[in-house]
């Protein structure tokens, strides 16, 4: 198990795939660990990519600082990992990992070939702030298991949860074993200690694909819209019938979207244009433009209000 040295702390990472292949770096969400990208690693390595995954500081097998973790530490850890790779480098992150990926893209212009922000955000809306505080309180009062109880129905669909209902304790167990409560609390506090990135988003010059689950409750469409409006070469892709944790629920589809994005960028056929698309239901299907004249921020087919 290889480690990078971030000061006195160790960051556990994994690199797979051909050394000279284009690179994809994948950044975990707050309560995740690197193994949750296994399906992505396998799919992208099979397409010739070199895939890097890692545990953020405070997660999994990386070191867990006792009291203080900052977002700057996470960006520094990500930079260390990316320094191991040869261009072209594509960076994707989910949720808190999407935020860290956005921060990296802002702080390291010119280093990336493409950016994929999944269930991401650049600022704490009142809803997200209050939800984050409530989830932290849940963690404190009920432990990691209770936090998982809150996150599972919030972030995954009935279609995924239904077959798992009799097996939920086993589903939760690996996350409970891997992530320590104090480290999760430190991570949650680093998430809530937030300086909005919105004014800096326009400095992201690389092609950017923004992925948002159709029914994402935790980070709804409006938060992704901020990214779409502010990042010049971006496109927003809505994942049908998906929630916040669509990377867990639809790995084949999402890995395919990541691959197609990188291929478009490498072939110079990517056109962001701040456009809005609807992803297919299954991997390989066509992306279709969001119907013109309708408001993609609404759940009902409301007509767009000009301006």
């Amino acid at each position, binding site marked *: 198990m290889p480690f990078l040295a971030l000061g006195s702390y160790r960051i556990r990472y994994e690199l797979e795939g051909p050394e000279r292949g284009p690179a994809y770096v994948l950044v975990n969400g707050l309560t995740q660990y690197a193994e949750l990208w296994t399906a992505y690693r396998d799919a992208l390595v099979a397409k010739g990519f070199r895939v890097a995954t890692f545990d953020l500081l405070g997660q999994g097998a990386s070191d867990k600082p*006792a009291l203080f973790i900052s977002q700057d530490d996470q960006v520094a850890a990500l930079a260390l990992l990316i320094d191991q790779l040869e261009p072209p480098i594509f960076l994707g992150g989910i949720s808190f990992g999407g935020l860290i990926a956005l921060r990296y893209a802002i702080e390291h212009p010119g280093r990336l070939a493409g950016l994929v922000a999944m269930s991401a955000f650049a600022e704490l809306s009142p809803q997200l702030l209050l939800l984050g505080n409530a989830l932290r309180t849940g963690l*404190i009062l009920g*432990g990691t298991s209770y936090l998982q109880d809150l996150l599972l129905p919030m972030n995954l669909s009935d279609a995924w949860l239904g077959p798992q209902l009799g097996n939920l304790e086993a589903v939760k167990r690996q996350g*409970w074993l*891997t992530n*320590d409560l*104090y480290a999760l609390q430190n991570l949650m506090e680093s998430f809530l200690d937030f300086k909005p990135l919105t004014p800096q988003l326009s400095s992201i010059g690389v092609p950017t694909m923004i992925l948002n689950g159709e029914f994402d409750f935790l980070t709804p469409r409006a938060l992704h819209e901020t990214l779409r409006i502010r990042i010049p070469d971006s496109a927003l892709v809505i994942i049908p019938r998906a929630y916040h944790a669509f990377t867990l629920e639809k790995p084949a589809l999402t890995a395919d979207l990541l691959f197609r994005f990188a291929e478009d960028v490498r072939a110079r056929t990517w056109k962001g244009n701040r456009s809005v698309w609807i992803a297919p239901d299954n991997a390989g299907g066509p992306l279709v433009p969001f119907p013109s004249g309708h408001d993609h921020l609404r759940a009902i087919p409301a007509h767009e209000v000009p301006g």
Partner: protein
Amino acid sequence: MSMFLGPLDAAGRVPPGQQTRVAAFLLSCHGAMARQLALAQSWQMNPAWHAELNAQLFHEAEIVALLPRATSWTIDPELLFLLPGWETSWLPRPGDGFADRTQAMTIDVVAFGHALHSVVRPAALLPQDAAAQDPFALALRRIEFESGRVMQPQIMFLKSADLLPFRSAVNAAVEGRHFQVRKLWREMLAGIGVDRCTSQ
């Protein structure tokens, strides 16, 4: 080496040798914590923190009272050598960089508590098929669950505005106690065939 206690017996219970070693470690560190908390209350003038230290004292007392009855004990001669080393490690060790010695002593007590309640995860040692109603398994789960609650006021204290001028010293004190507790916990577990190095 396994990540978990065991192999379990036919009834899903942890072997008595492992129960004895784990319980002895927990009684040693939580007993020391209880003694230090009792002493710390005598010099703690802040009423809010006096209340928190008092609450934590009773939590430690619960653990110390629960484990002797919940454990299937067996003779473990190695404890004659292990226990003095553990007890010496838990002794107060106020750090440098604080306003005064009383503050340094209080920080050390809280840092020791934070390390115990965060690094030592006894329930995570139980294999998935451990008997749910076994007294030892119940005790380990209860200790870990309650530790999470006790940890919160410790974190609030250690990150409080009053201590911001001493952030580096506080961090060093807590990281030092984490390192010490983690090392002894892993060594104790390695002695009974459990490897937690990659999981914590």
